[in-house]
Structure formats: C-alpha cells, structure tokens
C-alpha cells in the first residue's frame, strides 16, 4: 500500500492507492452524489452518479470504482457533470413507475432526494410506463419492481453480508430485473432468511415492509456499519456516536 497525492477540485489531497476516489474525496469532506454505493458493501459503478472528470482524458470515471494515481487532477462538480447527473435521474424517473405522492418511502427516498439535489424539475423524455411485477408473497416484505432502479444494493448485501445470495439480476438491458432464487415468488424462496437487510438498504420504495402506508417507511442503513466493523475488526461500535 502506498500513499498518493492528487488534486480534487483544486484541493491537494492524499489517499491510499487501494482506496477509491470516492473514499478519498469523502475523507477530505468532498461530497460526490451516489445511489448504488453504500459504505460496507462492495462497489459496482451501477448508477453512474459519481462520475468525475480526470484531467488528460475526455472519458468520465465512476469515483466509486476508480483508484487514484499520483498527480491525478480530478473534478467532481462541473457543469458537465451536473448535467449528466440530472440526466441520469431523469432517465431513472422515466424508466420506472415512480409515483412519489403515493409511495411508502415518500420523503425518505434517496432517488427523490437526488432529484431535488440535481434540480430535476421535469422529465423531458417520454415515460415508458413498463409493466413490472409487484411480489407480496413474502410474509413480512414486498418487492415492487416498478420502483427498482437496479442499484443492486439488495443483491450485494444479501450476498456479502447475510451470505444467503437470495437476490440476483435476470434479463438484459431495459428488461433487467431483480429476482429471488430461481426467479420464483419471494415467499417461496428457500435461501431467504427473512433478515430484512435488503429492505433496509434499498434506496427507494422497491423493497418495503408489509403493512406500511404512504410515506411511512424510513430506511436505516446504520446497521451495516455495525455488522461490517464487527466482522472485520472485531469491534462493536456504538451507532449513537460518530466514532468508528
């Protein structure tokens, strides 16, 4: 492991060579918008919201999966990036069936918050209104694929933290969707332990608890830091304090 120095938004920063640009930026108080990233889970660069500019190349790089290099000059908040971030949220909004006003996580939704943050005032492309399946067969939980943005947090938390690997992705392109076990009703899944981690990490109202009404559900992801720290460092952190 080596310590590298680089520039982010004109500020000289240093970071480890095995960390992501996103992690280094965060350590220096530079916030980069994300949807699929969650501390404690591996990064997959699915949502593309954390795209950054790197001097010397016209390509954009997802900060969550890009490693630093010595002398790298990175910009995280340019007009071009803001435009693309708004466009990403706009496409997500048009691609699913997102009706905030009647959603269980209204006012507690990361997608909705990101729409506010990127100043998405309207959707300029046609809505696709896909016919997607809602599965309420699980005893405690529901998956409403209409609200899924394919961030894959549920897939990763189930595989990496719970170890059950109930969730997976089926299909290609616009037909991609989250499935349980061998594409069967969630309630019939043999691998699911009903732990509910997938529900808590889902950034939208796609995975919810049964019995909750409009805007009633608030997702809490703190448990992940507790479990991951316990597992990796054998330390059981106090979630009420900010100390790790």
């Amino acid at each position: 492991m080596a310590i590298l120095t680089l520039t982010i938004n004109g500020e000289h920063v240093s970071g480890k060579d095995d960390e992501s640009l996103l992690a280094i930026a965060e350590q220096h108080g530079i916030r980069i918008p994300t949807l699929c990233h969650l501390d404690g889970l591996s990064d997959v660069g699915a949502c593309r919201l954390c795209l950054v500019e790197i001097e010397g190349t016209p390509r954009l790089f997802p900060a969550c999966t890009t490693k630093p290099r010595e002398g790298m000059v990175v910009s995280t908040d340019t007009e071009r990036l803001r435009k693309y971030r708004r466009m990403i949220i706009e496409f997500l909004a048009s691609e699913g069936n997102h009706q905030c006003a009647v959603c269980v996580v209204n006012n507690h939704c990361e997608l909705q918050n990101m729409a506010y943050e990127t100043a998405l005032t309207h959707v300029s492309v046609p809505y696709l209104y896909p016919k997607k399946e809602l599965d309420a067969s699980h005893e405690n939980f529901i998956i409403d694929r209409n609200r899924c943005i394919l961030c894959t947090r549920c897939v990763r938390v189930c595989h990496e933290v719970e170890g059950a690997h109930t969730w997976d992705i089926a299909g290609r392109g616009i037909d991609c969707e989250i499935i349980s076990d061998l594409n069967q009703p969630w309630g019939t899944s043999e691998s699911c332990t009903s732990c509910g981690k997938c529900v808590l990490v889902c950034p939208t109202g796609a995975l919810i608890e049964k019995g909750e009404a409009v805007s009633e559900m608030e997702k809490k992801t703190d448990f992940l830091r507790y479990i991951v720290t316990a597992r990796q460092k054998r330390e059981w952190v106090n979630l009420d304090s900010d100390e790790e």
Partner: protein
Amino acid sequence: MSKTITISPVTRIEGHAKITIQLDERGNVTDARFHVNEFRGFEKFCEGRLMWEMGGITSRICGICPTSHLITSAKAGDDILAVTIPETAEKLRRLITLAQWIQSHALSFFHLSSPDFLLGFDSDPATRNIFGLITKDREFARRGIRLRKFGQEIIEVLGSRKIHTPWAVAGGVREPFDAAKRDHLLALIPEAKETALLALKTLKSIHQEFAADIPNFGSFRSMFVGLVAPDGALEYYDGTIRVMDGSGNIIADKIDIHRYDDYIGEASESWSYLKFPYYKPLGYQKGMFRVGPLARVNICDYIDTPLAEAERKVFKAMAGNAEAVNNSFYYHYARLIEILFAVEKAEMLLHDPAMLGTNIRARAMINRRLGIGASEAPRGILFHRYEVDENGVLEKVNLIIATAQNNLAMNRTVRQLAIQYMDGNKITEGILNRIEAGIRCYDPCLSCSTHASGRMPLHVQLLDCEGTVVSELRR
C-alpha cells in the same frame, strides 16, 4: 326546427361538465342532460397495487375531500385486517371526518353558492363570485373563508397537512392527539359556531327573497339514502344504511354496509362518464335517490347536538310532519345545519378524554379477502370495496361516490329548470346561471365522482332535432 342548447362548462362546481338542452320545433324543452366529460380510471389502475397504499392513492382523487376517501379506505382496510380499531383512533377519525364536512360545506356555501344569493342570479357573471362577495360584504366573506380554514386547521393538526394527509391507515391512525392541540382547536370553536349560525340566518332570509325561484330548483319526490347511527341519530362516520321515500316513509333500514351491493346498482349512459347509481329494488330510473346533506337531515330521527337539532326541527316542519323535504334547493339549508352540527360535535369530541389516548393502531395482516368501507362524505355516502389476494394485492376495486349517486336527481333538476326558464330559443345569462345553480345545490364534485381530472368550466349547446349544434355558449 328543434334545437339543443349546451351550457359548457358548468362553473363554480368542483369538476368538469356541460349541460345540453333539447328543444322541439316550437322551442319547447324536450330533454336536458348533465354530462360529465372527464375520465380517470382509478378503479382499474389500482388493481395490482397494495391494499395498504389505497388511502394514499384514493385520496389523490380529489383535493376537496381527500380526507373522506382516506377515512373510507382505512375502514375498508380495517375490514380486510379484520380488526376493531382502538377507541381513540375511532374518535380521532370521527373528528377529522367532521372537519372535512366543515371545510367542504363552507366552501360550497360561501365560496361557490352564496354569490348567487347575495349578488343575485341576474348579476354580472364577472363579479358573481367570491371576489364580488368580498366587495359586497367583506365581513361575511371573511367569516366564510375563516370557517373553511377552521375545518382545514383540524385536518392539519391531526394529519400534519391540510390536503392529502396519509394519517389514517388500516387499523387506526398514525399520530396521536395531545392536550395542547386540543386546547388550540377548542379556542377556535366559538367563532366557528357563530359563523355557522350567521350563515343559517342569512340563508333563511334568502329563502324569502327567492321564494319565486325555489320551487323550480329540483322539486320532486325521490328516495333518500344515507347512514344513520344505531339509535337513528345523524351519522357521519359509521352506522347502517337507511332508505326513505319522498313521502318520508322508511322503506329499508339497518342495512349493513356490506350489503350495499344488494341495494345500489350502477348504470352507465353513453353520453356521460359519470355513472348512474340507482336503488336496485326499484330498478334503474325508478330507483332515483338523493344522498348528501338533504338526505341525511331528512332520514335521521334526530341530531345529537342541541343547536343543530333545533334547526333540524324547523327544517322538517317545512315538509309537513309526514313528508320529507323534497326540494333540492334545501340542500343548502341542510348543509348549513350540518356545519352547525359538525362544529358542535367537534366540541363534544374535543372534551372527550379518550381523544388523548395513545393506543391508536391495531396491527394485523390479511385476514379477509374482501373489505368494504363506508362513511358519509360531505356530498353523501361513500363506499370503497376492495377484493385482495392472500397477500393484500388488489384484484378488484369498486368506488361508489356520493356525487354519482345524485346523478339521476341532478339530471332531473336540470330538466325541471330548463322547462321552467327556457323561453323559445333564447338563452340568457340569468337562465344559464339558474340552471348551473340547480346543479350547485348538490355541490357536485366531479373529479371524485368520475375519478376525473381537469379544469372546471361550463359549456351549453343548443342542438336541432338532427343533433346539429345550432348555438353554443361557453364560459
């Protein structure tokens, strides 16, 4: 050559509609129809959604009475969960239902209808509205606006927002009440009561002034349908269905709301998106009935608040002892009696210690595949009927809205007014407005009743016997 006159859009109602008047060769009215030309399709697109979401979804049908949909949906949800909700939750739901009546009724009377009465049917349409009213009688208008605000304030205090609160849920309510909120609302009661009494006094003076017009405003016998409490008192949240005929005879009583389908059928006509509910035992057309304030005050045995009960007796005396009050103009009167009742009843509830309980929600999963909820929305009895699968996903939805139940009667009223006031092929502003005012008696909410959206203007067409538009008037 015969003609049809079309009034489109109909103004100062909640929704989108037009009226057509058919004339024969000699200019006599042969028919008149109230058309509702908007469609939204809630019953269909709710299929496949979750039972728990229905309060939120159905309350979006309307911005005037979302609370009525919320409460009725929550009650259908209670039925599916098969729970009896805690006493506190029921009383809190009752309070918000009364608040809904107050704000909606105040809107109907002060904002939409009183300009006709206080400025006159023949006054300039440009100022015959709430703003004209403010110019003419600032204090009266201000009091009306504040009365509506009082209703909205209760809704906000309970549900955290005035419109589209998601506060009531299957099993109860989400947030409890407290003493500080109670004291805040109690302090507003005296002014609300005073305004309700002032409105009644004003309306009664109008009854004399408009004595010549009133007999033409939907004066016909029909049945009246609504909920009454187990002891026959005026009911707004629960109770059983009572049916009264136009002569004041109770022809069906103590009908469990789960059996509404045995008594109320829904017919459709090709010329309107608004369905035509009818009383099944008598068949379509003969089964015309009215719901809402006129029906409720007619069918109840008494009102359990003193001032409103005294007023109900005066109301009933108008019909003679054995009769029901059959003139739709008196919807306004009944509506104001209900405002007074709602304010008095809200005061009684606010003094009830059970309102401050903290046990407000029963939790359960799907225990029944069918849930039916009914309550008295401001415009009349409202039914939500949900069929769900074993996981709570909706398979079938039926919503029977108060305004739709008045559809046959509204058409009858339009016909009566057209016959009375149409003179040859001429249509004047005063005639136009009287026909609209006939509709306004029912305070129709068309976005609810068709589950439809849109602006709210009036359009009248005059058609010849071949159906060609000869003349047209829009507002």
